[in-house]
């Protein structure tokens, strides 16, 4: 029996299954930690126990410093999409709908998700590595010994700033995207601005704007919460900081795509 068990433990089947179970356990554990942290954060927010000085600093960091790159990425995405859309639609006689289609695409989807990707790579990674460094250099222990709750001091201002700034970023980015689309359509297929903007209004629904803002709030909060959590639970030295940052970025990406999908199913099916 002993040797059979030993043989079994060396088998590929065992390794694959135990590996899968371990992955699953780690996944559930991570999900649990993130939810628990999120629960405490929202309790503080509801109780209005918010450090306003930190909040302002974090809003500045979240929104302002990342703006040039976020706007460039959304603008360029819009160029990429508009150059395809405009060319084909004008060819097929649908030039009057280019503005409509671009507006729908950008307001409903591209503005938020591309801004989200940009924010994850700039802000999410920086939050995760910052907090992970604080963990491995015992700064988080120091906060606890001084009887301050790290969730309140570190998480709350970062997550709240994400929920405040993300919609603003997405609104500005969407405006830039729609405008860039108009210029691209004009340059690539000679479509007049008049035709573009007339049909733009047809594609602009209040509901879409509302959903987009709601979605951005979820994106901003999720990116900050996931990044804070992975940083907070980092282990080990410099390697631990690197691992935490990578995981934070990957999980943030996956999370916002899932959220985006859920929104699409809920509102546009």
């Amino acid at each position, binding site marked *: 029996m002993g040797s059979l068990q030993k043989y079994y433990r060396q088998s590929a089947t065992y390794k694959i299954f135990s590996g899968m179970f371990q992955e699953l356990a780690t996944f559930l554990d991570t999900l649990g930690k993130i939810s628990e942290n999120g629960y405490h954060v929202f309790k503080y927010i509801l109780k209005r126990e918010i450090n306003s000085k930190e909040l302002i600093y974090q809003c500045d960091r979240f929104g302002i410093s990342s703006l040039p790159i976020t706007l460039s990425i959304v603008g360029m995405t819009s160029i990429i999409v508009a150059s395809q859309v405009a060319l084909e639609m004008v060819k097929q006689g649908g030039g009057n709908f280019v503005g409509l289609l671009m507006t729908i695409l950008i307001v409903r989807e591209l503005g938020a998700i591309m801004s989200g990707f940009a924010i994850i790579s700039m802000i999410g990674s920086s939050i995760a590595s910052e907090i992970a460094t604080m963990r491995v*250099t*015992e700064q988080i222990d*120091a906060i*606890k*010994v001084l*009887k301050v709750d790290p969730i309140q001091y570190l998480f709350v201002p970062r997550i709240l700033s994400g929920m405040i700034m993300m919609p603003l970023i997405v609104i500005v980015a969407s405006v830039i995207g729609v405008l860039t689309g108009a210029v691209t359509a004009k340059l690539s297929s000679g479509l007049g601005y008049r035709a573009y903007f007339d049909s733009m209004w047809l594609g602009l629904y209040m509901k879409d704007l509302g959903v987009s803002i709601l979605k951005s709030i979820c994106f901003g909060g999720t990116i900050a919460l996931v990044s804070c959590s992975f940083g907070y639970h980092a282990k080990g030295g410099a390697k631990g900081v690197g691992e935490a940052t990578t995981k934070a970025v990957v999980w943030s990406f996956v999370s916002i795509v899932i959220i985006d999908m859920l929104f699409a199913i809920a509102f546009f099916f």
Partner: protein
Amino acid sequence: MSIEVKNLIKTFEDKRVIDNISFKVENGETLAVVGFSGSGKSTILKLICGLLEPDSGEINASEGDIAMVFQYSALFDSLNVADNIAFALRERKDLRNKYTEKEIKNIIQEKLELVGLKGIEQKFPSELSGGMQKRVSFARAIVTEPNSILYDEPTSGLDPISSTLIEDYIVRLKEETNAASIVVTHQMSTITRTADRVIMLYNGKIVFEGTPQEMLAQNTPYTKQFVTASLEGPMQMITE
């Protein structure tokens, strides 16, 4: 104002790092904790200040705050020296509205002077030497007027002069606050200059307890090996 530890047990995974340890530190007394790296000295401090939960056993500290001075200072690197020291006064729920900004400024001054520093309020931790960082972390730790102070290797990695300076401040803080202090250290000078009593840890247990003089007398195999820094003796560094 005392710290009492009874039958403390702490296990990490399946390794028993603290194995039924008891001791007491009175107010105004300083206890040195010595032992190999990895013998659980930091773990004891973390258990006492609540960063870790014991598997079993009791920790009784008399009312009031427990301050901890971390091995690598653990200063907040995004805050300047003044904000580091004032952290608890500004962020802690029960202290947040207790002092005006002017009073906080005075407290910062006072604590900095206590550790022999002046005019560095606006500097960031990365701009300070290791010894100065240590002293700022002392100031940060004692800002809440704690009744117990824990030091994790306060003189490790410092030059001999800086070490002496730190040792003097440990004695001075004890005299000013009458706190119960625990100093984790490897350094003979720190033991003889600061401690009233010493305990030595090995394999999770206390293998020696006495005064620094008794330790230096090398009357037991453990103290003999430690004081002479010998490879021969009852304590073996096992590499797994």
